């Protein structure tokens, strides 16, 4: 303990009352973490919750400061994995829910996998894509990107009179979007993709896809 004192709360939240304090020079054992709160046990065996910002004023037994990697802008610029969900989605007029995961080869180049389900008045379906994304200005809070890829789309048309059969087609897409860093490990992401579905009919189909959602990196 390096700060004048450490406040122990009864629960992991700002409103929970302080019921005990740890004096400077005493030590605590960190038991676990829940969001921004750490459960600690004092030398006298009292357990309580300490806020993250208070924990950062403590030191380890060898004198080095207590740190915890919560994610920051540097991590946003350069990271290995990211994943997220698109809560808003529009696939050719149908509502879409989708999720993505990506693996960064460099800070500006990533391989991305996307899976989604679209539900519309004319048809329902699922789609899965794999693509490459190039991020411009990865060091900025707002970083745009372009992407290129391929995938499959399974469509189940809805028709009241004549029931057309379900179909699975290959597709290719090109698109672009942006990432905007929020805090810690979180960012928002919006994107547009133009799909060309290689149908078995005479004409290929073009589908516009718009998505917006939350993501995190790790």
């Amino acid at each position: 303990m390096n700060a004048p004192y450490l406040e122990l709360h009864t629960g992991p939240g700002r409103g929970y009352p302080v019921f005990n304090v740890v004096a400077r020079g005493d030590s605590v054992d960190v038991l676990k973490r829940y969001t921004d709160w750490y459960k600690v046990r004092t030398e006298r065996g009292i357990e309580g919750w300490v806020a993250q910002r208070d924990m950062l004023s403590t030191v380890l037994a060898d004198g080095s400061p207590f740190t915890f990697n919560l994610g920051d802008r540097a991590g946003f610029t350069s990271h290995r994995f990211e994943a997220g969900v698109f809560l808003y989605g529009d696939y050719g007029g149908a509502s879409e829910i989708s999720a993505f995961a990506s693996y960064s080869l460099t800070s500006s180049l990533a391989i991305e996998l996307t899976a989604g389900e679209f539900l519309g008045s004319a048809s329902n379906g699922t789609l899965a894509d794999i693509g490459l994304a190039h991020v411009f200005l990865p060091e900025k809070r707002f970083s745009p990107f372009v992407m290129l890829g391929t995938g499959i789309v399974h469509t189940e048309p809805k028709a009241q009179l004549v029931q057309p059969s379900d179909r699975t087609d290959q597709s290719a897409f090109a698109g672009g979007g942006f990432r905007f860093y929020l805090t810690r490990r979180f960012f928002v992401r919006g994107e547009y993709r133009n799909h060309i579905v290689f149908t078995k009919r005479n004409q290929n189909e073009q589908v516009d896809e718009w998505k917006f959602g939350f993501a995190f990196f790790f």
Partner: protein
Amino acid sequence: MEIRLRVLLLIAAASLTGCASVRHLLGHHGASAEPVADSRPAAQAPADGETLPSDQPPGADTSQNGDESAPRVIEPQVERRKIKVPRIRSQNIELGGYYGTLNIEDFGAHPVYGVQLGYHITEDIFFQAEAGRSKGGFTSFEKLSNVKLLTEGERWFKYYDLSVGYNLFPGEIFLGRNLAMRSTFFVLAGLGATQFGGDQKFTVNFGAGYKVLPADWIAVHVAVEDRVFDTDLLGVSKLASNLEAHLGATVFFGF
């Protein structure tokens, strides 16, 4: 005699050039060269920073290199105390199940059960995914006319959703004098899909609930949620509102 002299000269020459086996033979121990070779790595080691004793500056030992024959009194064997910080386990993931009643519009109220997976970002905000199922009954029309609108398989009501939740009023409940449990009222809203009546529908869900934590790692909750989607199952297009009330139990864990 001449041969003996040649052998002696050969031995003398060999010992001067440093043939180790011959030097041993003649009682040399090589005291002049080897301590220098020994002391150098010991003196340089602090430059790596690993074995540097905290009370000894890096340059303090170098004077010994000059005095090559001086015996080493203190071997710097002091190692910095290394602390291995154990990983702090988080408890941000919440996994569990629930059981309750779902009122499927026009098809009656029936038992519903499901699983839920949540992730708590801050003390206030969490993400939650739910997947559940129930089975609808018969509409009034079906009961009166004995005409079946749906097959048995189409009466299954299966849904999933992704929601964002907010812990609205965190607090504690007190059971007697000595027992306090954390509790919170929460609201959530999200999007998902519902499969019912041979069709899959884009669904909006929203609800509220109350959660009590008997321990840090376990929670029980009651919640009421509405699942709304557009339907034309009964001939006219309308917004179907399917109210669900359930009791659930979850455990918190993390990595």
